């Protein structure tokens, strides 16, 4: 029966693969990944399932699930569906945190039909070392690239106002990869219980963790809240306060600002922490977190967007000129600054006789952001190819 169930599972995979194997992508990472899947599927198909014991069947079950999951997200990352401008920006941020010459990760998106599900990160494919371990040991196959799955609503695939929260989702990946907040939560409990915090530290920690955070039974809650705080700060490095502005709205506005759940801190506290970080306010919590980040990843938590990038071009209906990859996320900040405080600057600058309707303002700025990033991608690819040719 077990063997027959495995045969059924593999037959289902073959059916899915028949469709997915023709996928085309615009980057070599995904092509390479798909090619490795092809070898893996071939290796499984060459095996005699009747010879397997229970443990070997379990290995194959996990590998087939891994392939199914890979296909599921590769299918929605094909050339014609992929929001490559925003992913290019995220990939640049990722490369700042994970050296691509050591480890190769490719960001893939899964487009979700629902609006309510909003954005999420799924690290199973990128960080599930055991799956890669099994594949390597059993089939001697190594995936040169790993996929980072980020889920976003299909309706917002090309929306550059909402998509800035993908920096928050990337933060979750960085946290899970380096295991930053899990040990930090334990450290906070240890420090509290060993009376290492002074009176003002205690006030600060009690504000951000308004429960008995020092007790073992609250470790999971504390860790979950730290994950969100870390990802908020990670995003703030690139997009300033704007992720938190959006969060305030989607989580229910001022009426829900103090609501806290087992997984998420209150939006009020999240916003306050981001403000403290951006204003460089004195904070033992942020300073200790910075140390934990540095110890685990060797990287520095710091403001990474440039205030030199202004929105004057957008007002003139021109794309922003981006000179380096480090300036990419600054375009989102500039666009949000304009939109957030919009007082008909575009109409005034361009001598329009009538005010633009709100949806038109959104469309114009959103398109200009896409164009700004698109221009940078074309220019930088041209520069790279020139270097190769010369």
């Amino acid at each position, binding site marked *: 029966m077990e063997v027959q169930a495995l045969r059924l599972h593999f037959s289902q995979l073959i059916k899915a693969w028949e469709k997915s194997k023709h996928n085309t992508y615009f980057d070599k990472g995904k092509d390479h990944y798909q090619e490795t899947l092809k070898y893996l599927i071939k290796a499984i198909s060459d095996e005699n399932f009747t010879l397997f*014991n229970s*443990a070997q069947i*379990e*290995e194959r079950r*996990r590998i087939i699930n891994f392939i199914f999951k890979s296909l599921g997200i590769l299918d929605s990352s094909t050339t014609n569906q992929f929001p490559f401008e925003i992913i290019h920006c995220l990939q640049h941020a990722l490369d700042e945190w994970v050296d691509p010459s050591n480890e190769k990760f490719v960001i893939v998106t899964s487009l979700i039909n629902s609006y309510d*599900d*909003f*954005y*999420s*990160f*799924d*690290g*199973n494919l990128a*960080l*599930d*070392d*055991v*799956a890669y*371990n*099994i594949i390597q*040991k*059993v089939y001697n196959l190594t995936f040169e690239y790993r996929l980072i799955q980020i889920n976003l609503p299909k309706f917002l695939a090309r929306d550059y106002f909402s998509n800035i*929260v993908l920096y*928050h*989702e990337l933060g*979750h990946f960085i946290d*899970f*990869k*380096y*295991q930053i907040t*899990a*040990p930090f939560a*334990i*450290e906070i409990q240890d420090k509290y219980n060993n009376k290492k915090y002074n009176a003002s530290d205690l006030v600060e920690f009690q504000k951000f963790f308004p429960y008995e955070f020092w007790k073992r039974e609250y470790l999971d809650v504390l860790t979950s809240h730290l*994950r969100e705080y870390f990802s908020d700060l990670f995003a703030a490095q690139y997009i300033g306060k704007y*992720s938190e502005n*959006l*969060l305030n709205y*989607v*989580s229910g506005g001022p009426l829900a600002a103090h609501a806290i759940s087992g*997984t*998420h801190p209150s*939006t009020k506290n999240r916003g306050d922490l981001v403000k403290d970080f951006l204003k460089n306010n004195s904070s033992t919590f942020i300073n200790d977190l910075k140390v*934990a980040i540095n*110890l*685990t990843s060797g990287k520095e938590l710091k403001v990474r967007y440039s205030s030199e990038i202004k929105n004057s071009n957008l007002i003139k209906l021109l794309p922003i000129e981006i000179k380096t990859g480090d300036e990419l996320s600054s375009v989102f900040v500039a666009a949000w600054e304009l939109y957030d405080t919009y007082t008909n600057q575009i109409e005034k600058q361009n001598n329009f006789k009538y005010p633009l309707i709100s949806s038109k303002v959104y469309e114009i700025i959103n398109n200009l952001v896409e164009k700004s990033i698109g221009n940078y991608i074309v220019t930088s690819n041209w520069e790279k190819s020139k270097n190769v040719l010369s």
Partner: protein
Amino acid sequence: MLHSATSSKPTFSTFQLFVYQILNGNNVYKNSVDNIISEAYSLSKGDKNMYTVNRSYFALIYHLSTRFTEFLNTIDIQNIKNEEYQYLYDKMQNESELIMH
């Protein structure tokens, strides 16, 4: 997720699968298992700390170092015996049953 849950797959059950394979005479995962036990040993002894142990298996290593301290103190980390893998497997099996129920 910005305002909902985020997923991260636990590695505990796979670790058990690896130990199970060793007990069945298949040593293909022995190095991986021994490395994880060795990291847990280093953490429990204080030779490494929470920020310096292997990041990929942090949760598992921390769990072993805190829940299996006595076991780690009794084994020879360079030469783990079959009955010790069996002990570890049984204890983890009991723990996962407790979690399931």
